[in-house]
């Protein structure tokens, strides 16, 4: 493939999705460039999580294509996308509840994209990843006993252990204290220095504004605007989507 500058990491092209007749995504197109931190903002129900589910293969789109480094990956099963180099940390952490933190990370090392760690090296690599997210001291704790913040850390360590090119972080700052958000921002920037491309969603905007290079705003399943964070939040439609003063276009729809 011919190298382009800046190279496209992920291209979402005209993706649509409906659930039981309700349009959740309508003709969504966006591009994530290699090495950037892209933020995706929008109020609840804007379609962010559905878009992530489609990118990671958990949900099939009704229409549209998704390219990853130029290759059409639409409809691939999640484990194949994982091996291609797409990883995700869920908003609600999804650990293996009966395994220790270390074992959780080992699973991703063993079955992820590789290069497959030699069996004796894997625990060492897993410990390094736990160190990176600040969970090294709890490696022997069974993950169902971890608190929410530590489970989010574990979630990121598990995603990283699959050795992805592109990491999707879903609402990792939700419910965190300002200090914890600051730590999360530092972590995200550190990950980028490791050569990762990051695509993050954020309902409350704080993480996105501090960490992202570029922001895409969504509302009601459509892209409203994109650009540098400061410009995007000043965009009138974005403000109204958040403050709820949007005019009900043609429908007399009541908005809280």
């Amino acid at each position, binding site marked *: 493939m011919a190298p382009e500058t800046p190279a496209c990491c992920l291209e979402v092209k005209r993706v649509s999705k409906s659930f039981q007749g309700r349009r959740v995504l309508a003709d969504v197109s966006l591009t994530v460039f290699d090495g950037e931190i892209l933020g995706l903002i929008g109020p609840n129900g804007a379609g962010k999580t559905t878009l992530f589910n489609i990118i990671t293969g*958990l949900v099939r789109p009704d229409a549209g294509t998704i390219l990853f480094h130029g290759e059409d990956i639409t409809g691939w*099963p999640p484990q194949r996308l994982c091996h291609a180099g797409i990883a995700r940390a869920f908003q609600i952490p999804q650990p293996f509840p009966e395994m220790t933190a270390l074992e959780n990370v080992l699973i991703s090392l063993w079955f992820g994209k590789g290069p497959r760690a030699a069996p004796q090296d894997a625990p060492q690599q897993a410990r390094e990843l736990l160190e990176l997210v600040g969970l090294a001291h709890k490696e022997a704790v069974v993950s169902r006993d971890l608190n929410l913040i530590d489970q989010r850390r574990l979630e990121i360590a*598990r995603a990283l252990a*699959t050795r992805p090119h592109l990491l999707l972080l879903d609402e990792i700052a939700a419910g965190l204290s300002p200090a914890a958000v600051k730590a999360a921002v530092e972590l995200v920037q550190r990950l980028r220095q490791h050569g990762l491309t990051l695509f993050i969603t954020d309902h409350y905007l704080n993480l996105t504004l501090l960490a992202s290079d570029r922001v895409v705003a969504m509302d009601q399943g459509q892209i409203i605007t994109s650009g540098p964070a400061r410009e995007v939040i000043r965009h009138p439609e974005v403000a109204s989507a958040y403050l709820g003063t949007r005019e009900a276009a043609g429908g007399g729809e009541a908005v809280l």
Partner: protein
Amino acid sequence: MLSKIKLTAITAVAAVVGLAVWPLVFGEADFYYQIFGMACFYGVLAIAWNIYALSGAISLGHAAFFGLGAYGSALLCHYGQWSPVITIPLGAATGAAFGVLWGVFFRNLRGVYLGLATLASVEIPKVIIDNWGSVTFGSLGIVGIASLPDLSLFGLEIPFGHSLKAQYYLLLLFLALAGLIHYSSLFSRWGWALRAIRENETAAVMAGVDIFRRRFEALILSSYLTGLCGALYAHLIGLIEPALVFNLHISALPLVLSIFGGRFALLGPVLGALILYPLDQLVLQPRLPTGHEAVYGLVLIMTIFFFPKGVATWLLKPRPAVWK
């Protein structure tokens, strides 16, 4: 963790040695050969069931594989006039073929719904065999199935066909082999994939585990092993009928033994079989000739309430220094 595995391995080897040498110490008795032989047999059946359960699936219908294995081998033996040595592994494949059907049709079913579908699916081969009398001899079953052939090895005659002692050692060997398969289903890379699927399917698939493939493999292995048990049963007992080999008890027994012993412990299913079956046969059966199998139902209920992870896990669990 490693030391726990070592401890289990030592116990396993000790158990096999103990089962192999007790006749030397206590003297021989056909009665005990038969009972402990069948305990080993049900141990294999429990391991077979548990391999599928390790992927998170609770099957209520393993009798389908058992019955098909039994009928597959018995009919091949009858029509093909082949030796049971060939028909047993081939007949067991009938069970695995039905496992493929489960894998295809039940791939999106989980938990309770999978349990119900597996329970209902036993009726399919049962009713077909019941009604297809011209080929399968119908509900009357097959009698006079060829017994296992005697084996001549290095000038040594091993009479598998009629010596309960030889059969006992054969079943013990079968159990030891199944134990090795169970070991690798727990502790290999493949076994970790099953564990990941069982604990959190979404997390497993996002970590790169091919969940459908791994679960399918576990199902095929499980159904083939169960089919082997059925095929072996046909030649050991000599007669089969649909109501016997597609019986609810055949589905229930491995489930009860595994859950009682401990589904996630290497020795759990075997422990269940070696404790419960002799208990049932030596203590209850003489007193309650009919209905003594009610004990398996009671044991299952008590296990779920009092030690849901099974006795093996319960015994190995680290306990506080002071007992409550």
